[in-house]
């Protein structure tokens, strides 16, 4: 199922394909398909690749020109992601700032913030981390305790954040803080932009199960940022944060799912090489794995088609994450089983091959961005209208 975005986008697509042919070479080409939303592998190369993309003016395809973007529409953004995934280019290191923070600033930031922060994001000059989660606030994000108090023209921030993806690389954090000490839950929160290069910010890497220092915990002790660094209204941080999380569009799922398709194909090759296709049980699971990646793709294309037709996407836009994350894990288990004992051997210094890394990292997909249980609550309550869980 090839996707054609229509004649209007064809020039754009051809330009991009040509650009990939010229630039996705050398070291970048060697790192095709490397990385993922929680994969810190080959960080330096991927960062260099982001800068290469930036130099080609390919970052922020849909962002206004005044902030360094291309000023194109949603359909070009989608076409970009599609071609990107087709080219199997390295996973962008700065995807968090590009997909979450940037759009949030565009929607909720003031003019000064947009001017100040958007161009360096697109130039890959400043790297960002998302400081939402805390040791005591995970799924229940509204229970954040990190406090921020006004001191003249500054905010003074105290508290702890955790699981900050690529936190050790971050020059800036966008953090959810409680600015009204007497408030509870969703009220009295504020979203602040905070520079990490100061004595009040300590960032310690946390090793993930693949052995990577990919996420971090962040200690904020009298950390300071300007009074003008609140995004959206003070006290309305929940709305701002939710707007960020709401920017979960088909565009971001496409590359991931084309990657899953490649994994499924690699799995079939492996099974063929090992003669596993003759085993009826394995064969059945292999076909099912293929079916599930194909379904992910179609679900995604349905959402994109609705978005580009200017309609609000249907329920599949919400069910897609739960389906994809669950099925991708099954794919990983199957790949490990097919690899057999050889798949259990790692390199020096716990260096993992693509299959091992993909399998291990897939375990995070049902946790981050709303765990599967939380997804089921959302589907049950928002899509099906079932009564809410009793809350204390």
């Amino acid at each position, binding site marked *: *199922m090839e*996707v*054609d*975005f*229509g004649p209007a986008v064809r020039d754009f697509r051809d330009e991009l394909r040509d650009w990939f042919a010229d630039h996705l070479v050398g070291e970048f080409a060697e790192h095709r398909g490397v990385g993922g939303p929680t994969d810190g592998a080959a960080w330096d190369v991927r960062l260099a690749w982001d800068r290469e993309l930036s130099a080609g003016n390919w970052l922020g395809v849909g962002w206004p020109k005044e902030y360094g973007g291309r000023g194109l529409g949603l359909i070009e953004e989608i076409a970009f992601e599609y071609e990107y995934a087709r080219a199997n280019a390295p996973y962008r290191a700065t995807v968090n700032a590009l997909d979450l923070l940037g759009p949030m600033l565009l929607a909720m930031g003031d003019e000064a913030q947009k001017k100040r922060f958007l161009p360096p994001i697109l130039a890959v000059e400043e790297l960002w981390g998302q400081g939402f989660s805390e040791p005591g606030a995970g799924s229940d994000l509204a229970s954040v305790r990190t406090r921020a108090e006004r001191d003249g023209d500054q905010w003074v921030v105290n508290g702890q954040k955790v699981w900050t993806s690529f936190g050790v690389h971050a020059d800036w954090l966008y953090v959810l803080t409680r600015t009204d000490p007497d408030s509870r839950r969703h009220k009295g929160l504020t979203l602040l932009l905070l520079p990490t290069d100061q004595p009040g910010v300590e960032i310690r890497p946390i090793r993930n199960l693949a052995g990577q220092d990919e996420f971090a915990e962040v200690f904020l002790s009298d950390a300071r940022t300007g009074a003008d660094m609140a995004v959206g209204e003070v006290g309305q941080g929940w709305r701002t944060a939710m707007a960020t999380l709401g920017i979960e569009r088909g565009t971001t799922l496409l590359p991931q799912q084309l990657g899953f398709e490649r994994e499924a194909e690699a799995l*079939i090759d492996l*099974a*063929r090489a090992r003669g596993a*296709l003759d085993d009826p049980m394995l*064969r*059945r699971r*292999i*076909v*099912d794995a*293929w*079916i*599930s990646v*194909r*379904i992910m793709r*179609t*679900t995604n*294309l*349905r959402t*994109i*088609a*609705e978005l*580009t*037709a200017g*309609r609000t996407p*249907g*329920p*599949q836009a919400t*069910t*897609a994450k*739960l*389906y994809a994350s669950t099925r991708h894990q099954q794919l990983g288990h199957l790949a490990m089983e097919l690899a057999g004992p050889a798949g259990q051997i790692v390199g020096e210094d716990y260096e993992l091959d693509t299959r091992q890394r993909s399998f291990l990292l897939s375990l995070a997909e049902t946790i981050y961005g709303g765990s599967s*249980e939380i*997804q*089921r*609550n959302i*589907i*049950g*309550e928002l*899509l*099906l*209208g*079932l*009564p*809410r*869980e*009793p809350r204390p």
Partner: protein
Amino acid sequence: MDLTFSEEQHELRTVVRSFLTRHATEADVRRLAADPRGHDPWIWRRMATEIGLQGLAVPEEYGGSGFGYADLGVVFEETGRALLCAPYFATVALAAEALLRCDDEAARAELLPGIASGETVATLALTEDDGRWDELGIRLNARAGASGWLLTGEKTYVPDGHLADLLLVAARTPAGISLFAVTTADAPGLTRTPLPTLDQTRKQARVTFADTPARLLGTDGTAWPALARTLATAAVLLAVEQVGGAAAALDTAVAYAKIREQYGRPIGSFQGIKHKCADMLVEIESARSAAYAGLWALDAGDETEIAVAAALAQAFCSEAFTKVAADTIQVHGGIGFTWEHPAHLYLKRAKSSEVLLGTPAYHRELLAARLGI
């Protein structure tokens, strides 16, 4: 890129749904399930005259309205929702499609208008005692007599075979697999026996032929590719029907979970139930993707893609419907296990649809073969 439904298709859905809400109520389903004919000729006529459902995707030159497969899919999703008791699948998804695919312009011109106008109920007689839907399952013998072709042998599990006016029969001649048309009114040597079915909403029959005269469609011995393509189309349409059935089953489960209280609160507020319903929706939306991909492949006319998408749709949607229907019973507790409650109607329709064009295992194998796995 056209992976979504148009405004016109949404309107079509509304029209079909409102028709079925009036003419295919649960009471109608129960009445017709208990009726040996299994359908109501009055409703069948209205389907044709009021909204032209039988001829929707039949080309205009044969008396239809020439819509595409996505449009037809919209209708099947709704008939699946309503558990419509009518020979619609047999007539439209199987017989009309087989006529369109076979290489016989004269037969098309002669037979399709009756189908499009709702006058002819038709079906495809392919399976025999072993229930196989592949080429090897076709053993019924056809031989050339002095004044034309004669069929001898038996077909069984023929959907709506007990009442079809027109049978399209897959048979074997010395040249290979061929397709024949038999008009059932006063056909010599033809016996039709209704089969008592677990799923009473879709009837089946055994049909025996003893030197029954039949009309050869197209060229002798070359029918299999057209039949395989017919089955692929039918597989997609059945998948959409299954999605509709599953969605309707989930609706009843959700409605009940909102009002039924235990431990002082609605059962839908318990995660054990809420999460089950959420999983049902995930299954349905995934099945939708599988089925719709089939519709779009059919409209695009890419043969490789059609073959893949059709097998995938049946492999996935069959199991999805059955799972959702079974979970619907679970959500309802004891009441879901009664004859009075509609939950079992969905379960049984799901179970019969699961094997109607071959089991999920069979379709997985078809898919594997088509992918070279």
